[in-house]
């Protein structure tokens, strides 16, 4: 079938997937898409009709499958070795984690997962600290005390420096190697951001060789061909999520919404018409969430409206 027909089909699939969310409310956007071309409704109907027939698919057998912690297509060498781990060593490695750590049945590591708005601090055996923002997943491995993996979300690392044994943080397929330091890492969909508040880190020493000193940051996309560009930042705002202060300079609203969700569990959705707006300014995570959201609305030139358990920003 012709390429544009495939594109229509892909869009129709996107609508179908989105509409399965009971909270879906972009019916006007959907209507706009239908109005673009009479063919759109026909393609959508054919697919939606098939989708409805899928209701006849048998439910999964009763057994609950435990999904692997890492995507199955991630390179194998990254996984920790499969030797048995020692419960005692692990107990020693975790000081502040209270009974919430779950064992990853496929590796030897410990997986720490935080709910949106939940902040947690983990002390490692070597004295290093990891402050984990909400909505994040961090894996540590008692067998590798100088290693942590940020699977998703955001964490601030305060690392005790050892000359011959650098601390390594892995995220996506990037490696961040400390040279005695405190730094914040965010792992989003196909992007890694690193900001350094103390000391020096090396970003991908064997590939990009980017050296970051205190007051510097990078944003690296997974598909970038070149090493990420280093920019200057305000040291005092690094890891601002810990004190409830988020500072932005022309950040897309969607990114701000993602941070609010992670840091404070605030659900903010961005209406399509407002998606292209960017935000510049500081947000204080106020105990009164209305206040934080109305600040965001006022500063971005949008209107905040309650929706379900959160807000929607419209233009």
């Amino acid at each position, binding site marked *: 079938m012709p390429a544009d027909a495939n594109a229509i*089909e*892909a869009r129709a*699939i996107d609508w179908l*997937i989105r*509409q399965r969310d009971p909270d*879906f*409310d972009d*019916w*006007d956007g959907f*209507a706009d898409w*239908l*109005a673009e071309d009479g063919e759109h409704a*026909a393609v959508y109907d*054919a*697919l939606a*009709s*098939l*989708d409805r*027939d*899928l209701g006849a*698919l*048998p439910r*999964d057998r009763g057994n609950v*499958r435990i*999904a*692997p*912690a*890492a*995507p199955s*297509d991630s390179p194998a060498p990254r996984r920790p070795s499969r030797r048995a781990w020692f419960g005692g060593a692990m107990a020693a490695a975790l000081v502040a984690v209270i009974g919430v750590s779950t064992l990853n049945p496929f590796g030897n590591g410990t*997986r720490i997962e935080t709910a949106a708005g939940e902040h947690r601090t983990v002390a490692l055996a070597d004295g290093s600290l990891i402050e984990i923002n909400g909505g994040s997943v961090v894996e540590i491995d008692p067998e590798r005390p100088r290693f942590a993996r940020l699977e998703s979300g955001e964490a601030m690392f305060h690392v005790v420096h050892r000359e011959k044994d650098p601390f390594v943080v892995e995220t996506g397929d990037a490696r961040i190697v400390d040279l005695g330091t405190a730094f*914040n890492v965010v792992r*989003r*969909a196909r992007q890694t*951001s690193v*900001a350094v508040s103390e000391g020096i880190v090396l970003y991908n020493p064997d590939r990009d060789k980017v050296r970051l000193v205190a007051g510097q940051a990078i*944003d690296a996309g997974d598909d970038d061909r070149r090493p990420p560009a280093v920019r*200057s*930042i*305000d040291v005092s*705002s*690094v890891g*601002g*999520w810990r004190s409830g202060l988020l*500072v*932005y*300079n022309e*950040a897309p609203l969607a990114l701000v919404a993602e941070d609010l969700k992670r840091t404070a569990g605030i659900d903010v959705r961005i209406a399509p018409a407002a998606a292209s707006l960017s935000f*510049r*300014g*500081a947000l*204080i995570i106020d105990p009164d969430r209305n206040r934080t959201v*109305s*600040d965001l609305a*006022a*500063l971005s030139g949008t*209107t*905040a*409206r309650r929706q*379900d358990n959160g807000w929607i920003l419209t233009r």
Partner: protein
Amino acid sequence: MALYDDSITGTFLTRRGGAARRDMAFQSNQFMTRSTDRADPAQGIEGVLLANRDRIIRFLQVRGAGESAEDLFQDLWMRLTERATGPIADPLSYAMRAANNLMLDRYRSARQRELRDKAWGEASDGHEPSAEASLISRQQLKQVQAAIAATGERPAHIFRRFRVDGASQRDIAQEMGLSLSTIEADLRKVYAALAALRRQFDAG
């Protein structure tokens, strides 16, 4: 993470600006509240349908109703007002979804009539077309299952959780330790495979 850039002074300046403009934001909030008050449960779904009549009719039109959009609006009215429902969080969205389903039902009834006419003389059993009945055969459903499995273990599992178990993308992402975009990409992949299979059904 924030893009840490502004100095702290700049920060407080912008914050003051925010406070000054907050009143405006609140005013518009109130306005929004008032306009949705028409959707108050006291007035019921009728109020929402009336207040959004043009919007819903336009939706039915672009959805393929053409000339009969006005009639279908009446159908929708009957469907929604006759049925006793509990409180609805977002009544307009609820009405739009019902309108969308109404159009899909029409499509399916028409398709069924078409298929029945095709099979005329073979095994016509005289049943009236119904939107509820499945349009694919048991054999085709097996092919669907095979096609889902063929997309790979992870996409197939994600798709089952999403479409069969009704889990949200966010929940699936959390339970599998994957990003939302990975979940979305896998779902698209499976749906694309099913769309291709559907074209084969049509051709066959």
